[in-house]
Structures are given as structure tokens and as C-alpha cells.
């Protein structure tokens, strides 16, 4: 048994930390946060330079041939610096296209996405692969119509990979005339969103039924991202408790606060290993992989929101300001928790998948 990241995974993690701590230090992050929410070009270029986009693309197709666990660790690091890029979506879109079993899709799209010449996002239904009330429909297999809410980075993306119900995936070009991208004021300004309205938009259907795998992978990446937010909130709170004084002593000396911080740690720290485990299950396709994806998304989403809220309380008045970046992670945690199905919804799915 070896429950560790590989040396290569640790190297990727460390190089990302090195990169983001320079280009997205808290000071820079706070400045950037006041801009119109949008993709951060500088960070996007830095990520492309590191070759992240091909992380899950097989080596035979020019990628790094690594696994979801690697990408999940990268997502955690991006989250802990609140990096405003669609890297996780780009990577999963590249993976899906690489596995699509369609020469056309691979030849047209894979290289531009891996090279970052084209930007890809995911437009997944809350209901996963099964479709649902907001499901997009395709009658003829060549066009798709309907609405998909809250698609991340849709304003910037060139293409979107969509779930179409019945386990099907499709690819649409977002610059097509039939596509309306309705801007929405995002809660999480580091990940802007749009509603997509499609009206007989040309779609390429993936021959492989990959929707379930893609949806599960996206759940795990949002769980990893929620972990990154929770961990940052925990760390900031512990640091603050060591410097802020009230009643002539450090607030960290109050047992009540010590216990609150210990509870935040108790919620957060073990949860890292749950997202590692869920990612690994997905990678080796265990029987419980789908259930673990749902459970891990539910658990991490809730832990992250609770931890971020507790962090605001530990900071007192300054915790409620815009100036202190805690709210940036609170909002990321809320978004990670809500996207693709809330914790209660994911728990219900998990129980079903466990055949309870």
C-alpha cells in the first residue's frame, strides 16, 4: 500500500505553487479581483507554458499521459491561489476528445486545445449523464437546442463539450451564430459564468459514451478545488489567531477559538485524502468510482463552505471585508459546492449508486 503522490505529481504541484505564488500572490489577487471577471491571460499563458493542458492526454497523442489524480492536485493548487483560468475544463475537454474514438474530433480539436490555441469549457447538466430538466436536446443528431445554465468561462471559450442525456457527449463551437452567451454576474469572480442558449446549433456527437466519466471527473476536480479553498481559509485563520490580540493576549490562546480552529482542521485535513482516493478510483475505474465521485463532491463542498464561513468568524470584522481575500475563497467554496448538484443532491446520488 502506498497512499502517496508520485514524485512526478509532487513536482507538478511544487512548480505550480512556485508559479502562482509569484503571479497570483494575495496582494496581486486582491488587485485583480476588482477587474471585470475574466480569464487571467498571464496565468493562462503560464499554465500553457507548463504543458498542463495535455496532462490527461495519452502520450501517443502528444500529451503527458498522466491521470486525474494529477489534475486534481493541480486543481487544488489553482484553487488555493484562486487562479482565474479554465485549465481544469480545458484538460478534461482534451481528455474527452482524446478518448472520443472520433478521428474528426481528434484531428480538428485536440492539438489546438493542447497548445492552448483554442479554449474549451464544459457545459454539464446538474443531473450528470442522465440528462435532466435543463437538458439540451438533439433531434437529428446534427444540431442541438436548449439552454444550459452557468457554463464557466463560456464568454472566452471557443468550444464547449456538452452532456446531451443518455450518456452522450457533444461538441459545439461557441462562436457560431446560433449561440447566445448570456452574461451572468458571477458569485465567484475568479470563475465567470454565462448561460448558453443554443438554437439548432451544429453539434458533433462523440461516438464513445463518455458523459458519465466526464461528469464524475468534473465532480472530483470541483471537490479538489473546494479543498484548496478550505485549506487556505484554515491556514489564514490559524495565522491570524497567532497575531491578533484581544484582552491582552493572542486570541489563539482562548480555548474556544482553539477548538474552533481544531474543528476546522478536523473537517479539512482528512478530506484531502478523500479527494485523492476518489480521483484514484476514477483512474483505475473501481466499482465504487462513481459513488466516490458523488460522495467526495458532497463532502468537500460542504466542508469548504463551513470552513470558509468559520474563517470569516475567526477574523471578526475584517473577515467581512472585500479587502481581506477570505471572501474570495468563501465564494469559490460556495460555487464548488453548488455546481453540478448541491451536497444534498450528490448525497442522494451517492446513496443510489451504493444501492442502499
Amino acid at each position: 500500500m502506498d497512499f502517496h503522490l508520485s514524485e512526478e505529481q509532487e513536482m507538478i504541484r511544487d512548480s505550480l505553487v512556485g508559479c502562482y505564488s509569484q503571479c497570483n500572490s494575495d496582494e496581486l489577487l486582491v488587485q485583480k479581483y476588482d477587474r471585470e471577471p475574466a480569464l487571467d491571460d498571464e496565468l493562462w499563458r503560464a499554465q500553457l507554458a507548463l504543458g498542463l493542458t495535455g496532462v490527461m492526454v495519452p502520450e501517443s497523442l502528444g500529451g503527458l499521459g498522466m491521470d486525474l489524480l494529477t489534475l486534481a492536485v493541480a486543481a487544488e493548487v489553482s484553487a488555493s491561489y484562486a487562479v482565474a483560468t479554465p485549465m481544469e475544463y480545458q484538460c478534461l475537454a482534451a481528455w474527452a476528445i482524446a478518448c472520443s474514438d472520433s478521428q474528426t474530433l481528434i484531428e480538428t480539436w485536440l492539438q489546438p486545445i493542447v497548445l492552448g490555441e483554442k479554449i474549451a469549457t464544459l457545459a454539464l447538466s446538474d443531473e450528470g449523464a442522465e440528462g435532466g430538466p435543463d437538458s439540451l436536446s438533439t433531434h437529428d443528431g446534427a444540431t442541438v437546442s436548449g439552454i444550459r445554465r452557468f457554463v464557466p468561462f463560456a464568454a472566452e471559450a471557443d468550444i464547449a463539450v456538452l452532456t446531451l442525456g443518455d450518456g452522450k457527449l457533444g461538441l459545439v463551437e461557441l462562436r457560431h451564430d446560433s449561440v447566445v452567451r448570456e452574461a451572468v454576474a458571477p458569485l465567484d469572480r475568479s470563475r465567470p459564468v454565462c448561460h448558453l442558449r443554443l438554437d439548432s446549433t451544429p453539434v458533433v456527437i462523440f461516438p464513445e459514451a463518455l458523459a458519465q466519466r466526464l461528469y464524475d471527473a468534473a465532480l472530483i476536480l470541483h471537490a479538489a478545488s473546494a479543498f484548496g479553498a478550505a485549506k487556505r481559509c484554515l491556514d489564514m485563520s490559524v495565522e491570524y489567531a497567532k497575531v491578533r490580540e484581544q484582552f491582552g493576549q493572542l486570541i489563539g490562546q482562548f480555548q474556544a477559538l482553539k477548538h474552533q480552529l481544531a474543528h476546522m482542521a478536523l473537517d479539512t485535513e482528512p478530506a484531502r485524502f478523500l479527494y485523492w482516493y476518489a480521483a484514484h478510483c476514477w483512474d483505475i475505474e473501481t466499482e465504487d468510482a462513481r459513488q466516490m465521485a458523488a460522495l467526495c463532491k458532497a463532502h468537500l463542498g460542504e466542508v469548504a463552505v463551513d470552513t470558509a464561513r468559520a474563517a470569516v468568524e475567526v477574523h471578526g470584522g475584517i473577515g467581512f471585508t472585500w479587502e481581506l481575500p477570505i471572501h474570495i475563497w468563501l465564494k469559490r467554496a460556495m460555487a464548488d459546492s453548488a455546481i453540478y448538484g448541491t451536497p444534498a443532491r450528490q448525497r442522494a446520488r451517492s446513496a443510489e449508486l451504493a444501492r442502499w
Partner: protein
Amino acid sequence: MDLELSESHLAFQEEVENFLVSNWRSDLAKDPEAISVFRRTATGAGYLYRNVPEIYGGSGQSPDVLKAKIIRESFAGVRAPREMPGVGMMMLVPTLLDCGSELQKQSFIPRTLTGEYRWAQGYSEPGAGSDLASLRTKGELVDGHWLINGQKIWTTMAHKCTHMFALVRTEPDAGKHAGISYLLFELDQPGVTIRPLKQMNGDKEFCEVFFEDARAPADWIVGERGEGWRVSKSTLKHERNSVGAASGSKDLFDKLVKQARKTTLNERPAIEDPLVRDRLAKIQGHVMAHLCAGYYQLSCDAGGADAGIVGLMNKMNTTVIGHEIAAAASEVIGDSNLQMPDYKVGRPGAEKWVNQQMLSLAAALGGGTSNINLNIIAERGLGLPRD
């Protein structure tokens, strides 16, 4: 126990409802002048500012818990304006009634009731939050005026207010608590600089307020020199009660139930979802306990009795319910959590609950953090020794 309205209360209810029919229409809600006229008329009729004597602009009614409840509910039913919101009415007026001089009552209370004077609460400082008594803003009496120097922070709405009531250190040689006085002053003066701070929800409501030789007349001190802590205690008590008003929790809860009826979850109204029902019913238990404890406190107050430990729990109950409602709302509204409500482009939909998530945190901090409130419950309520 008797919860039936007596003949006389039923008659009162009818009277209030008739009054509202003749004096209030919902289209007046956007007309500030009409609202002031309405408040004056309603005060004249004895429905508003009941605890404030007539000579100070109130209606000076004897305390009657049931009448107060009838008024609150009837006014809320037709969305008629009630008393002027804000800390002036909630905190300063009761404090002046308790501890103010005759002159202070006459000069400040009537204008606070009409909204001409709007008050900011200047207590917290960068170094003095939970440990409020360590505050350092200085006041010195020079030639018949207080000269005030220092800084306050987190001062709600200071930029929209005309006046401040503040805790200021005037007796530097006295002890921590004994050195503090309760001063009133105007905000619109050269010695005061106000800088609004942006909050996590994007609004600018709380402020930093800097004083450089800000001035107040010598007799704008409430209580004696060095009595500010005691005077402020009466104010804090009022704040805990007002923030803790259980009816606020109930209103919020009712709105969440309404939202759950409107929102579709798994292709059915969310309110039909067993998980949502369980969660809402659980919160309702908490809300009703809070509300009933509130009725009990009102009855105790009316009879001049002390409600005991529940009287120390209003703020904490409101805070906990606020957190629970925020968490339940986030399940009910689903992916609408991803959207920031934007009041500039019209009335927001389900995403308005996102703001509630943040405001529930503000409520947990403002007026004393939860830890401080829990310490009060443990020490004053349960008689446990202090740290």
C-alpha cells in the same frame, strides 16, 4: 397561559386595521414625504414609538405586549412603515430615556424619531473589538468643548449618518472601564473623516471614521464622566434584544418556505422534496422555540420580571438560525448559488439568497461575536467562572 385575544384586544385589532385602511396604500411606499406623514399620524394614533413619552415625540403608551404584537403584525401585513430603522431608534433613544439629561432627551429624541438625526454607533476600534473596553479614542475637555482624537472602525452607515454616539477615553488615569465616557457629536464637521469600507457582498455599509480634534459641546455627554461603560451596557442590552428579535428570524424563515414552494427541484416544487421538508421543519422547530421564548420575555418584561437565561440568548439564537437558513437556502436554490444578486438590474430571483449567506455572517459578528455571546451565556447565564 391564555393566548386568546380579549374583547378589548380584538377591538384594538379592528381599530388598527381600520386605521391602516384609511391611512396607508402600498403605492405610498416609494414616497418619503408620505411615509413621514404616515409615521406622524400613526404615532398620533398611539401605534408607533409607544415607549417614548409624548413630550419627546412618541406616543407614550403603557407597555402592552399583545397590542405591540397586533400592531407589528397588522402593519407587516400591509407593508406599512413601522418605526424609523437604525441604531438611533434601537439603541440611542432607549439609552437616552434611561440615562440622558432632560435637555438631551428634548434635543435628540424627537429629531431621531422623525429621521432628521441619523446615528452611527462608534464603539469598535482597530485594536478594540471583542475587548471593547481597551478602546483608545481620546476625549479632552478644552474651553467648554470635547476635543476627540482617534479612530473608530466597522461603523455601520457612518457615511449616511448625521451624528455619532461613541465610547471615548476621557479619564486616562482611571481604570480600563472607569476611564470611558459616552459622547454624542455631529459627523459633519472638519475634524471627522469618514471612509466607507467595501464589504464581502460588494456593498459599502460599514466605515472607518477618523477624528482629529473633532468637537462636541461639553454637555453632549450621556451620564457622568467615566460612566460610559455603564451607559453603553444599557445600549448593548437594547442591541442584543433588537438584533435578536425573533420575529426577524420568523420572517426570514417564512421567506425561505415561500422560495421552496417556487423553486423546482428534481422536477417538483422543492417543498415536496423529503430532504427539504425535513430540513425546513427542523429549522422551524428552532424558530418557534426562539419565538415562544420571545413571547415569554415580553410577558416577563410587561410584568417587570426577569426572563432569566433565555434573555441572554436572543442574539445567539438569531445567529444560529441565520446560519441554518443560509445553509438550507443554498440547497433549495441549487445552481442559483453561482450568481451574485444584482439589485441594479431589477429584482433578483432565487440568487438573492446568496446575499443572505453573507449577511448571516455579518449578523454573527455585528454587536458582539458568537464567542463573546457564548461567554455571556456561560458566565452570566450558567454562573460558570470567568477565564
